[in-house]
């Protein structure tokens, strides 16, 4: 992964919230690089700035200080409208609470980003059919999102995020609102997207992500406390008893 070009970079990134004369620095000087094809997880306690960092990197909130570079281009100074265009083409977003459009069908939710990006209805439809089939929810295409389980809604959200084949997939606690089975399925789908080359930057509390991500960045108090590749534990994993001893 060290040979792959840098897709996303942050330098000295900071975010300060001001409210009624009180200011709170949620992100305090982050330097971060994500290589193309890399799967990076951001972890850390509640309030450590994880989600803020992700939102700033995706242009959902402006940075207070610092630089953001995407695909070799500096983007932190872009206007809201320019960010929207950039996201449409290059950044897919998945949120904890799915954020699907409730008045549209599942199919329309997934087709919309492609249509907005200028795809023909035929292309958008084809891509949507592929994605829904791939994520195992083709049968729900005509349903309203509210008729779907949480796990299914998150799959739709993932399909929507991948609709325009974004350079970067940003995911904010994508399993935070799911039971363990659905969480595992969503993680598996993310791992599959990664295996086929998708660059992913994901914020999570779920340590199982360490089983899938290339690298984990630990935030603490708005700063990076640690940033290291995940190196598999004991080389031989055939023996489960290495981890847990059965007594008796």
């Amino acid at each position, binding site marked *: 992964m060290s040979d792959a070009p840098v897709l996303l970079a942050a330098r000295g990134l900071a975010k300060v919230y001001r409210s009624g004369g009180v200011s709170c620095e949620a992100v305090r000087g982050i330097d971060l690089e994500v290589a193309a094809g890399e799967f990076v997880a951001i972890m*850390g*306690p509640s309030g450590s700035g994880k989600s803020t960092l992700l939102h700033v990197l995706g242009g959902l909130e402006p940075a207070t200080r610092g630089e953001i570079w995407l695909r070799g281009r500096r983007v932190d100074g872009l206007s809201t409208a320019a960010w929207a265009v950039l996201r449409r083409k290059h950044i897919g977003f998945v949120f904890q609470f799915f954020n699907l459009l409730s008045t549209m069908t599942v199919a329309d939710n997934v087709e919309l980003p492609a249509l907005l990006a200028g795809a023909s209805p035929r292309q958008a439809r084809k891509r949507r059919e592929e994605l829904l089939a791939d994520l195992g929810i083709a049968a729900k295409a005509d349903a309203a999102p509210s008729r779907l389980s949480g796990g299914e809604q998150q799959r739709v959200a993932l399909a929507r995020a991948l609709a325009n084949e974004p350079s970067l997939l940003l995911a904010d606690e994508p399993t935070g609102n799911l039971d363990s089975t659905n969480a595992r399925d969503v993680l598996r789908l993310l791992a599959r997207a990664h295996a086929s080359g998708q660059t992913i930057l994901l914020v999570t509390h779920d*340590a*199982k992500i*360490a*089983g*899938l991500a290339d690298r*984990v960045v*630990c935030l*603490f108090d708005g700063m990076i*406390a*640690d940033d*290291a590749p*995940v*190196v*598999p*534990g*004991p080389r031989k*994993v*055939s*023996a*489960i*008893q290495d*981890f*847990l001893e*059965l*007594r*008796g």
Partner: protein
Amino acid sequence: MRQPLLALLAKEPAHGYELKLALEQTFGQAYPSPNIGQIYVTLKRLEQDGLVRGQDVAQDSRPNKKVYELTPAGRAELASWVEAPTEGPRVRDEFFMKLVLAPLAGVADRMELINSQRRHYFGIMRSLVEMQAGMDHGDTAARLLVEGAVLHLQADLDWLERCQEELV
């Protein structure tokens, strides 16, 4: 492996090799494939302690085999093992000692200790998740054991985070 053998014999009398197979079948990957010699030694000790009784059974053209059955004392021993509460997992006290003591002794920085321990846990998590992915769905005991290991590890990581919040 005294108790597992007692438990298997509570179901039906068996000889050493049958017990080995039964252990393998019950636990799948979750238990190291038991050494037959160790099973024989354990059976002999259980017999000396009066918990099982062995009986030679003649076989055609092969040496006699010894079939063991549970004695009333063995059944009582098994029951008290099953009924006794089991100790919960212990906190990683060795790491905790390091974490508390190391900075006092000027040997290491707490943040570095926590980070290196966390990397270690992440590495184990990777191995466990890979193991889970390659697991046969039918091997219920092994699947649940790995899931248990994952949950323990998650708790260890949460605890590490708490230590970080309080101590760093």
